[in-house]
C-alpha cells in the first residue's frame, strides 16, 4: 500500500467524478433494486394471470357476458417494465390483478426505461464472502483469566453456521490441504500467541456494543488532561462528538485556543500554520539537519506539547522519509521493538514511520513534519496516545460457553474441519496449498467478530488459530499460514465435520 501510487492516485480523483459516482449509485444501483422489485411484481402478475386463465373456464360466468373494464386510474400496464400484462391474452382479467397490492406510486420513472449502460450479466450465483476483523485483545489476558473463573457456563448456543458467518468454511480441495488460509509475518513467533492456551473450562462470548450503549461516554474527556496541564485551561468547548470520539477546544488564558480530537486512548491535532504562527511555534526543519539539530530546533514546540499534556519523555526516535519526517517520543521504560526501517506517508497531512511497533508503546507522542518548500518541512500533525492496559469497554459478555479442549481442536484440524479466511477464488489460485494434516507450528486463541454489520448486535466468538511455518526471510522475518477451529462447543460439530468430509470428497 505504502508504495502504491495508484491507490493514492485514485484518492486524487476529482470531486466532480466522485459526485458522478454518487449519482450513478442513485440511478443505477437503486433503480436495479427497484427493477428487482418490479420483477417480483411482474412474476406475481404473470402467476396470477396464469392461475386465473386456467380457472376462467371453470368460473360461473362468461367473461364475454360480463365485460370487465379497466379502471381509468389503474396503471398496472404502465408500471411493469415490459408491459407484460398488456401483451398477454388474459388482458381482460386485469381488474382481478389490480386488486393485488400493486402500488404504482412506488414505481420510479427510471425503472420504466432501464439503463442503457447495464451490461449483460451471468447467471452465476453470488458467493458470499465473509471478511472479519480480528480483535487485538492481547492486553486482556488477565481479564480472560478472571472470566474463566466464572464456572456457570450455559449450554452450547452457537452452531457451525454461526461460525461460518465469521470465517469461511470453504476450504481447499484436498481435505487438510487448503489455499484458504491467512498469512502473517513476524520476527517473533511468540507474538503469535495472543492468548496463551490455558486450562479454561469456559470462554466468554462478547457482544459489540452499539453507539447507544455509550451513554456513559465521558462528557468532559479533557479533564484528565487538564489536571496535568500547566497552562490554565479556563474551559472546554465541545466542537463535536461522534460515538466515543469527541473534539474539544482548549480555551487557555495565556495562549490562543487550541483544538484537539479526543479518543478513548489518545488525542490528535492537525494544527494549521496560522495556529502555530499565533503561538510562535511555526517551526521549519531541514532535511540536512542531524538528529540532534532536529530535536533542538523543535524543542520549543515539544516543550509546549509536553507541558500542555503534563508529560515528559526520555527517549525519541526520528524517522525520515522523502515526504514526511516524524519524531516519536516515548518513555525509556516502555518496551520497544524495532523492526527494519519502513515508512509510509499519506497525502499532505501526516506521515508515520513503522520502525517502532507502536502497539508495544503505552504512551507516546508523534510529531510529524511534511514537505514544505525545497528541503524544508513544517509541522503537519501531532498524535498523543496513552493506552489503557485493558480495552474491552466496547464489548459486553453475553454468554459463557464450554471450551473445546486443544486436543479436540487439533483433531478437528487434522480432519480438515477448520475454517479458512474466505479468500477470493483468484487469490486462492495464486497461493500455494498448505497441508495441516501433519500438525502445526503455533497455536493461539483469538476473538473475532463479523464486521459485516456496523452497529447491529454482533457476537465476538473465540477461535483457535493454528499457524504453519512457511518460510523465513533473510532478515529473520517468518511467514506463517493460519486457519481456524472453533474454541467453544458448537451444537452441530459432528454434522459439520461430516459435511466437510463430503465436500472434500466431492472436490477431489
Amino acid at each position: 500500500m505504502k508504495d502504491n501510487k495508484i491507490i493514492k492516485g485514485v484518492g486524487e480523483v476529482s470531486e466532480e467524478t466522485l459526485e458522478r459516482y454518487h449519482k450513478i449509485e442513485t440511478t443505477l444501483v437503486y433503480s436495479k433494486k427497484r427493477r428487482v422489485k418490479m420483477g417480483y411484481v411482474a412474476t406475481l402478475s404473470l402467476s396470477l394471470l396464469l392461475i386465473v386463465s386456467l380457472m376462467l373456464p371453470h368460473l360461473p360466468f362468461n367473461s364475454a357476458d360480463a365485460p370487465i373494464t379497466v379502471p381509468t386510474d389503474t396503471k398496472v400496464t404502465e408500471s411493469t417494465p415490459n408491459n407484460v400484462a398488456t401483451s398477454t391474452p388474459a388482458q381482460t382479467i386485469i381488474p382481478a390483478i389490480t386488486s393485488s397490492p400493486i402500488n404504482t406510486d412506488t414505481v420510479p420513472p427510471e425503472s420504466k426505461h432501464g439503463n442503457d449502460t447495464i451490461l449483460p450479466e451471468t447467471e452465476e450465483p453470488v458467493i458470499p464472502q465473509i471478511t472479519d476483523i480480528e480483535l487485538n485483545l492481547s492486553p486482556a489476558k488477565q481479564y480472560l483469566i478472571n472470566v474463566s473463573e466464572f464456572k456457570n457456563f450455559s449450554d452450547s448456543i452457537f452452531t457451525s453456521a454461526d461460525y461460518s458467518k465469521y470465517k469461511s468454511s470453504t476450504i481447499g480441495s484436498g481435505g487438510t490441504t487448503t489455499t484458504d488460509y491467512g498469512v502473517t509475518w513476524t520476527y517473533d513467533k511468540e507474538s503469535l500467541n495472543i492468548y496463551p492456551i490455558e486450562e479454561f473450562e469456559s470462554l466468554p462470548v462478547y457482544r459489540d456494543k452499539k453507539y447507544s450503549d455509550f451513554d456513559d461516554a465521558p462528557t468532559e474527556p479533557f479533564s484528565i488532561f487538564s489536571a496535568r496541564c500547566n497552562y490554565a485551561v479556563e474551559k472546554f468547548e465541545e466542537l463535536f462528538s461522534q460515538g466515543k470520539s469527541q473534539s474539544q477546544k482548549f480555551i487557555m488564558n495565556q495562549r490562543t485556543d487550541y483544538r484537539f480530537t479526543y479518543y478513548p486512548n489518545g488525542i490528535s491535532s492537525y494544527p494549521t500554520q496560522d495556529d502555530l504562527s499565533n503561538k510562535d511555534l511555526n517551526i521549519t526543519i531541514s532535511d540536512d539537519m542531524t538528529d540532534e539539530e532536529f530535536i533542538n530546533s523543535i524543542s520549543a514546540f515539544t516543550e509546549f506539547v509536553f507541558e500542555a499534556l503534563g508529560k515528559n519523555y526520555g527517549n525519541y526516535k526520528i524517522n525520515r522519509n522523502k515526504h514526511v519526517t516524524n519524531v516519536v517520543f516515548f518513555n525509556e521504560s516502555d518496551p520497544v521493538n524495532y523492526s527494519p526501517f519502513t515508512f509510509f506517508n499519506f497525502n499532505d497531512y501526516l506521515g508515520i514511520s513503522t520502525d517502532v511497533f507502536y502497539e508495544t508503546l503505552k504512551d507516546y507522542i508523534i510529531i510529524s513534519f511534511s514537505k514544505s518548500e525545497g528541503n524544508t518541512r513544517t509541522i503537519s500533525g501531532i498524535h498523543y496516545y496513552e493506552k489503557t492496559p485493558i480495552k474491552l469497554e466496547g464489548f459486553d459478555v453475553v454468554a459463557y460457553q464450554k471450551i473445546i479442549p486443544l486436543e479436540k481442536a487439533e483433531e478437528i484440524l487434522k480432519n480438515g474441519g477448520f475454517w479458512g479466511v474466505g479468500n477470493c477464488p483468484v487469490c486462492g489460485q495464486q497461493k500455494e496449498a498448505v497441508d495441516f494434516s501433519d500438525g502445526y507450528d503455533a497455536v493461539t486463541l483469538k476473538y473475532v467478530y463479523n464486521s459485516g454489520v456496523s452497529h447491529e448486535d454482533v457476537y465476538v466468538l473465540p477461535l483457535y488459530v493454528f499457524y504453519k511455518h512457511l518460510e523465513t526471510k533473510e532478515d529473520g522475518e517468518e511467514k506463517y499460514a493460519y486457519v481456524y477451529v472453533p474454541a467453544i462447543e458448537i451444537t452441530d460439530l459432528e454434522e459439520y465435520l461430516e459435511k466437510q468430509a463430503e465436500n472434500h470428497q466431492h472436490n477431489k
Partner: protein
Amino acid sequence: MADKDKIISDAEIIELYFQRCESAIRQTEKKYGKYLYTVAYNILRSNEDSEECVSDTYLKTWNAIPPTRPTVLRSFLAKITRGVALDRYDIKKSAKRVPEDAITSLSEIEAVMSDFSDLQSDLDTQEIGRIITEYIDSLSDRRTYIFLSRYFFALKIDEIASKLLCSRSSVNKELAKMKNELKEKLLKEGVLL
C-alpha cells in the same frame, strides 16, 4: 422539523466554515457523518478506528476550509476520510495489528495493482489522479461505479455484485478489463516505464 434539526445545504455548510463557525462541523456530521463513517469502515472494518477517522476528517476539514472552497463537499470530505483511513490501515497493518484476512479488501487491491509496481517513483500522485480521473470519465456508468466502489471506497466484490445484482465473476471481469485499460493508458501517458 425544528430549525436545529434542519439539514442545510452544502453551500451553507461551507459558508459556516468560512465564517469559522463551529456549527459547521456539527452540520457536516449531521449531513455526512454516517456516509463518512461508511467510507472509513469499508477500509478499516473497525468501529473505533472508523469513528476516529471521521473525527479526524472534521478537524482536517476545519483546517482546510478556508482557504479551500470545495466544489462538491461530500466528495471533498470523502477524499479526506479515505486518506485518513488509509493512513490508519497502514499503521495497523505495519504494526501487525490487523491480520491479512481482516483487510481482504485492500489486500486484494494491492494484489490487483501489483502490476503497477514499476511506477516512476518521482511521479506526483496528483498527476496520476488526473490521469485516472480522465480514464474514469471515459467509462460507462456501470464501470465507473464498479471502479470507484472497489478502488476508492474499498467495497468488497460481493458488495458491489450485490448492489448491481450481478455475480462476483462479472464484477471481477470488469475490474480485470479496467485494470488492463488503465495500465495501457498509464503506459501511453508515460507514467509506467
